[in-house]
């Protein structure tokens, strides 16, 4: 049965509350995981575990949070993502809104890409992909 975007958001919210110990009303689509919700690195794996269970899907490591891209010398120069890096990022994170990031592709700003809404979009693509 296909899940509506609202149903997906509710389940993602539940996973965030469980993993990060935040209040439900703090979990908005715009909230960033590290900045707004206080996630630390280990929480990202916890979130992946919870989403896999919640939605009955498999999330290959690096798929939802392609963190290894930001330490790859091939794509990063002087602390900023290169053109090649940006184009790789677009490929790897089609579910993220890169509009702001590409104006200042500093790796320090990467955490702003990881929002609750980004996770919801990723899940939507996974769930509809599974249905096909």
């Amino acid at each position, binding site marked *: 049965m296909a899940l509506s975007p609202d149903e997906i958001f509710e389940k993602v919210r539940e996973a965030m509350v469980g993993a990060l*110990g935040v209040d439900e009303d703090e979990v908005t689509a715009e909230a960033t995981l590290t900045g707004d919700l206080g996630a630390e690195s280990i929480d990202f*794996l916890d979130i992946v575990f919870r989403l896999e*269970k919640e939605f009955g899907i498999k999330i290959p490591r690096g798929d939802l949070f392609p963190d290894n891209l930001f330490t790859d010398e091939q794509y990063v120069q002087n602390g900023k993502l290169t053109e090649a890096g940006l184009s790789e990022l677009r490929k790897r994170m089609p579910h993220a809104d890169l509009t702001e990031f590409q104006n200042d592709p500093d790796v320090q700003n990467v955490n702003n890409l990881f929002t609750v809404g980004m996770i919801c979009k990723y899940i939507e693509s996974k769930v509809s992909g599974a249905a096909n």
Partner: protein
Amino acid sequence: MRWFWVDRFIGFKPGKSATAVKNVSLAEEHVHDHFPGYPVHPQSLMIEGMAQTGGVLVGQAFNFEEKVILAKIGRATFHRLVRPGDQIVYHAEVVDEIRPEGASIRGTITCDGQLVADIELMFVHLDKSMSGEDFGDDNFVFSADFVELLRMRELAQQFAAADGDK
């Protein structure tokens, strides 16, 4: 002194659940400091006992070859005190499944049928979850001595028997 905060496993379903007991004794030094005149088994050591129960459960799934590290205490809520003379029962259940990167467990601690605590822990396999960092060949979590101890305490046979029941 050995850092063992469970005394015996009384149930083990590989990849699913583990149950262990710990007898709290007035002969244990730590209860005399916690607190003088009012000995109470510390909650921090109950979290450690749960981590050991869950850690063995998670470690056994990959034959104690992974370095299973307690990465996160998701929740630990305590409901009553545990005092010398009490026997506490740790029960850990794997949430979902044990993955190549690690696993989460949901645990309860009970004493005389009463709930002492509910606890959620997350374990990672150290070499599989960090980005490419190499922690060496030596498994400092499940040392050869530890695995030998399991064997001595007939846990190995228990695992084998449970394995046969699957």
